[in-house]
């Protein structure tokens, strides 16, 4: 099963994703948290701290793996539930890595997530909403375009797609119950 969850910054999308993951967790599988952001500065440390504290207090046991590129390289079992947090940081990793071309970053991510979804029980991919802004630099525009491409592909392949607005999950595709 593949679920796509998107929302704005601080929209509560990670919280919704974690609750869903806990619900889909298989008795004989693990809850895997794939952290895709690289630790770059104090601000990032703080974000990581909040997210980590919430998982620790969730009453569920999470296995955390750090994976900022090659998302399919995560070692998963057929009963595992994997939460990918998030596609935008994964894109930054794939986009700026030096050993592979940036223009294929989008398809590498789509292929990786779909591959993971085949091997694991459930994959929940979290991403950030694309901005509704006047286009700025060419680099930003290209990054947005690639992110849009990934989102369209993942939504198409997903069993459910959810947009989180101010903590409220809006189901765009599929049937999911989001309350505890």
């Amino acid at each position, binding site marked *: 099963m593949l679920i796509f969850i*998107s929302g704005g910054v601080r929209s509560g999308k990670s919280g919704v994703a974690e609750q869903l993951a806990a619900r889909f967790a298989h008795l004989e599988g693990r809850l895997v948290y794939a952290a895709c952001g690289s630790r770059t500065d104090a601000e990032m440390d703080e974000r990581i701290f909040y997210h980590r504290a919430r998982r620790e207090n969730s009453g569920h046991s999470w296995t955390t793996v750090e994976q900022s590129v090659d998302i399919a390289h995560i070692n998963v079992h057929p009963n595992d539930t994997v939460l990918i947090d998030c596609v935008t940081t994964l894109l930054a990793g794939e986009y700026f890595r030096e050993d592979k071309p940036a223009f294929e970053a989008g398809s590498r991510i789509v292929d990786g997530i779909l591959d993971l979804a085949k091997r694991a029980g459930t994959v929940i991919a979290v991403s950030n*909403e*694309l901005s*509704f*802004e*006047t286009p700025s630099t060419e680099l930003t525009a290209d990054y947005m375009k690639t992110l849009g491409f990934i*989102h369209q592909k993942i*939504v198409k392949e997903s069993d459910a*797609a959810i947009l989180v607005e101010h903590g409220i999950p809006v189901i*765009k595709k599929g049937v999911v119950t989001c309350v505890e």
Partner: protein
Amino acid sequence: MHFITGGAFNGKKQWVKKFYNLDETLHQWHSFYEEKQVPALMGEIVVLEGIERYVRILLEKSGSAFEARALFKKELEHWAKEDRTIVLIGTDMMKGIVPMNSFDRMWRDAAGWCFQNIAAASHRVDTIWYGIADTIKEELE
């Protein structure tokens, strides 16, 4: 008239092609990303893509968001009278932070106004979110 909007790179064009089965249907496709002029309209289905670009072109011509909107409204009135299906595709760029550049601020204002006019004049309005349409207006003919 049918208005399709949503954020950039959300699959608006693909949705229109599929919805109107354009691969197998005769139609006129005009992109304001490539062409600055409004074309002579032909055929039963006309798709005008990049409406926000067209607003920008009008803004460059007129110099104010107010004037650009007035020019756009005139054009829109012509389109509304046409006896054919007119599909307008415009990118929503009105939900970000205020642009630093004053021209971009005017462009955003003008586009927002023009989109309101289009939505009012259209019998159907869809917003596209990564290929999924949300019909926010639909008038029965």
